[in-house]
């Protein structure tokens, strides 16, 4: 069964793109979760609807139309946070609401909801093309280079932004690059899990990794591992049982989180029992 599953070209492309984008989201998500900016994925994914609707309306690629729209929106979030001095969640909420309402309006102009749009809303990993696979691979390579170059700066800025500034770390630039990476990741991820579930891919693997890891490096590694496991097993299960792949991937991530949480609690309980016995 598995050899048959893996032999299909569309499955291979889906798994490759899904793996690349899931690892990208997991790694970015670690920093976003720790900086309490994880809802940015939710906000930007809503903005994707505007890009998709624009693409469907103008009969151009929704994917490519979404990239500038989401990049502009993420820039908007940063500017609102910086200039109007409001909290990140409120800035995300404003841009998210604007993106969603504009998207719905454009969808109406484009002739209402159709099969294409449903594919983007709920994900269609098995329709991923070669170009998208290369784009996801390029994004992963770019992100890995960024993380290698600025690893300790990113930890310092995630832990204590004002202090990082007083160490000469260019916190604003780091935040901007991080959010730009997130924007592109969100756009590339909407084919994998769908617009509605992108933020889960940014949040769940890092949160699960934080339950089991002891060091920052371990968090990054575990987040990537959980993300990969969810994509591979999610796509396989959706193939076998003919169920939606995006939702399966996210449900598996939730299951991993539950297991990690229970395991963590049991570990703490056993440790306490051992201490009491001593």
């Amino acid at each position, binding site marked *: 069964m598995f050899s048959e599953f893996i032999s299909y070209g569309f499955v291979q492309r889906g798994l490759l793109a899904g793996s690349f984008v899931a690892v990208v989201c997991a790694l970015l998500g670690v920093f976003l979760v720790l900086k309490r900016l994880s809802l940015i994925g939710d906000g930007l994914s809503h903005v994707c609807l505007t890009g998709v609707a624009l693409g469907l309306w103008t009969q151009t690629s929704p994917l490519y139309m979404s990239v500038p729209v989401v990049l502009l929106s993420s820039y908007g979030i940063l500017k609102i946070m910086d200039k109007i001095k409001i909290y990140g969640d409120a800035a995300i909420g404003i841009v998210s609401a604007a993106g969603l309402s504009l998207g719905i309006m454009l969808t109406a102009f484009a002739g209402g909801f159709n099969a294409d749009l449903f594919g983007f809303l709920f994900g269609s990993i098995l329709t991923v093309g070669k170009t998208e696979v290369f784009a996801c691979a390029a994004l992963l390579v770019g992100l890995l280079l960024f993380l290698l170059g600025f690893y*300790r*700066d990113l930890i310092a800025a995630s*832990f204590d932004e*004002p*202090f990082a500034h*007083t160490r000469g770390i260019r916190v604003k630039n780091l935040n901007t690059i991080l959010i730009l990476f997130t924007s592109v990741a969100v756009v590339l991820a909407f084919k994998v899990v769908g617009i509605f579930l992108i933020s889960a891919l940014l949040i769940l693997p890092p949160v699960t990794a934080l339950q089991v890891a002891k060091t920052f490096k371990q*968090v990054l590694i575990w987040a990537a591992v959980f993300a990969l496991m969810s994509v591979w097993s999610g796509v396989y299960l959706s193939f076998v049982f003919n169920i939606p792949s995006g939702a399966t991937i996210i449900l598996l991530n939730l299951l991993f989180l539950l297991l990690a949480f229970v395991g963590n609690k049991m570990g703490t309980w056993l440790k306490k029992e051992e201490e009491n016995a001593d």
Partner: protein
Amino acid sequence: MSNIVEIKNLSFRYSHAWVLENISAKVAAGDYVGVIGPNGGGKTTLLKLILGLEKGKGEVKLFDTEISRFSAWEKVGYLAQKSPIAQARFPISVEEVVLMGLCYDGKHKEATSANLQRVYQALSQTHTLDLAKRIFGHLSVGQQQRVLLARALVSRPQLLILDEPSDALDDASRELFFGLLVELNKKHGVTILLITHDTAEVGKYISKFMYIDRELVFFGDKEAFCRSSKVTEKLGRFAQHTIDHLHNQGHCPLGCDCEHSHPAHHQAQHGAEAQHV
């Protein structure tokens, strides 16, 4: 004496209102300045402007360099009012937190034995050496604050900027904390800018008061602070409260050696000169 901090005509506003207006002051090397004032008076904003964390109108210089071009961050130790994100799950050890303090000009230091030695020295100074391997987020707020002070000290800074650092500390830790600041100031000549509401405690040690209430109400020696008619006129009960605190601690700001240096007694000792309330 050279200026460590120089502020000229500094103003700052959020969208709705001015938070600080036209502040000018010079902090000299070796000064121990207590920054005081009412809540919302702009004290924290002033420190943020000094550190370049906020941008205002006017001029800020650190060690004679304009703040936007300042890069010698090893000379500056900073401890903020609020503990950083510090969620229990942030996977970072106390040792790693303090090592961050050795990052200057965006260049991080590796955990070599020499650098770790400095980390352990700083942790010893704040009596937190036994916490070195613990996860930072697992510590109590008071312990976290002492670790963050170690991080501020690890680069052996010439200027310490502290924003209400003693709020989360218990009495023993507070005494230790202020004792350490005195030692750094007196023995090592470290310049200190300290925001505090604990006037009774810092009144014993500081050399200058900076009173901020949107504008610079007073900046000068603590002796002059008690005599300042501007302080009493402007601040009424708060000035009385502050000065009472100084007196009740038995540390007469006017140099009186008496143990019962309450303002009333004080006035009798010093006559008209002491008409500060």
